């Protein structure tokens, strides 16, 4: 094996303890890739862990992390509380990514590239769009979903009613009650509060305005077998991010890049060549 694996713990400013796998090649570097998973995924599931392993083999120091939105419902805080994707708020990603970067700085890394998948891509763009860190030198967005309210009500006939239901639940004091809600074509679980926060009428997860503010080159990838709105959104994000940014298409790949990992990693590796290891 050409890299070592270390399971690391990092703490956020609001005292969440999160975990990640730090994959370090033999060659030293001050550049670290930070991999951010999608809804209810985690640091050890594909595609992020697989991408991290393959890029570590190519000499990139890779930190594949949990956000507090890992798994649908997980133990949080002192392990007696409830967290996970069902409970997280979109803005929590700032504390989570701050925690990950602070940890990496203690290990001697000074430059960072955020690589997000699905909701992790949205989080990465929102993070850098709001924080505008000079030490983040690039963002790679893999399959950012166009899932904000005004878009979803056009595509999903029942979505308007689901948001209305969540609003009623919050108004009636049941913000923490769990709702069964589809995410794309698959079932999901959210508290009413989280469902409104992530997908509500304020369109806060439309990351195009944030893409304008990232201040670094951005690569947006989408899979050829994904619905057209993934490609539209990738192109829109790239247009917003401006000069030096790029859209790439991975032929035949689904949302999780199953069986298309080598092609996807090659696309990312080619993009990374502009940043000295």
């Amino acid at each position, binding site marked *: *094996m050409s890299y*070592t*694996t*270390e*399971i690391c713990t990092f703490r956020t400013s609001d005292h969440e303890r999160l*975990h990640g*796998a730090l994959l370090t090649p033999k060659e030293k570097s001050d550049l670290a890739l930070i991999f951010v998973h999608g809804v*209810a*995924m*985690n640091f*050890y*599931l594909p595609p992020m*862990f697989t991408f991290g392993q393959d890029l570590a083999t190519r000499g990139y120091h890779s930190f594949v992390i949990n956000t507090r939105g*890992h*798994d*649908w*419902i*997980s*133990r949080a805080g002192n*392990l*007696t509380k*409830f967290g*996970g994707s*069902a409970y997280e708020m979109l803005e929590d990603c700032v504390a989570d990514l701050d925690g990950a970067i602070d940890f990496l700085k203690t290990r001697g890394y000074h430059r960072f590239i955020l690589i997000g998948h699905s909701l992790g891509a949205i989080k990465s763009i929102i993070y850098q769009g709001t924080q505008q860190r000079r030490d983040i030198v690039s963002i790679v967005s893999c399959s950012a979903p166009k899932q904000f309210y005004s878009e979803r009500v056009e595509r999903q006939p029942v979505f308007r009613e689901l948001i209305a239901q969540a609003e009623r639940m919050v108004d009636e004091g049941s913000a923490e009650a*769990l709702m069964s809600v589809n995410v794309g074509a*698959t*079932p999901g*679980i959210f508290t009413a509060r989280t469902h409104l926060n992530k997908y509500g009428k304020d369109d806060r997860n439309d990351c195009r305005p944030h893409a304008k503010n990232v201040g670094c080159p951005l690569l947006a990838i989408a899979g050829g077998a994904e619905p057209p709105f993934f490609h539209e959104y990738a192109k829109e994000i790239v247009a917003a991010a401006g000069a030096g940014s790029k859209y790439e298409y991975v032929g035949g790949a689904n949302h*999780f890049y199953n069986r298309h990992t080598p092609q996807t990693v090659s696309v990312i590796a080619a993009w990374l060549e502009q940043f000295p290891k």
Partner: protein
Amino acid sequence: MKIETQLLSFRTSDNETLHGLLFTPREQKSDLALLMVHGVAMNFYLPPLATFGPALAEQGHHCFVINTRGHDWINRAGDLTGFCGATYEKFEDSTKDYDAALARLSQLGYRRFILVGHSLGCVKSLMYQGTRQRKDVVGVVSCSCPKQFYSARAADQADFTEVMAQAESMIANGKGKEFLWAKASGALALFSAETYVNKYGKHEQNDVRPHAGRLGCPHLAIAGGAEHKYFPEYAAELAKAGGASAAFKIVPGSDHFYHGHESEVVEIIAAWLKQVAA
């Protein structure tokens, strides 16, 4: 660093893909591996097992700290569009999880195994070996096995019989997959009604004292001195059921997760391993 860490996956006979961390001493080969199994809604990277594994590996033991399908409360299962986790798992599922983890270790060349469980992971480990009686399982270590079968909980927890009756009623009304909030080891937990009855129902299948009596291998039961009194009591009962090849140890002042007492537990396990797995 004296140990190497690998993140491995393994697949069960019913096509669940599970994960674990294999901690191996760099310069000490062995045919013996410790299989370490978490408690309710925990996972392979949370303490105490994620602490015990590397610490024991530093002492020369090969340790595989795994997820069962009961990891976290609700996780992505199957093809990642299904739901599982502690909220949904059934006791009988754990047999498949253990079979698959041990098969993965066998692929890597290990031939002898010691099951190390924490909390619900003890119940599962004792049930597994008590049922399977595998010759290649040469020891079981249970860390804070909970006395959580129906009659014990009914005697200890005021609202337990009422919550169980609610779960039974939900199943009878075709709502067995719906959520039920209930206490587990003193804290609030989330179960489907079906899982709650499966794990804690009147059948008392999770009373592992009968299993402890037919392991066919040595058993070390550990409990924390600061845990609810039924943990040390149960450790003593499990050791008694195991007869001459079983023992129990109490870690003074320790809570259920062995916070601040990890090194004591590691030393207890390491000393026991010298006796049983030379």
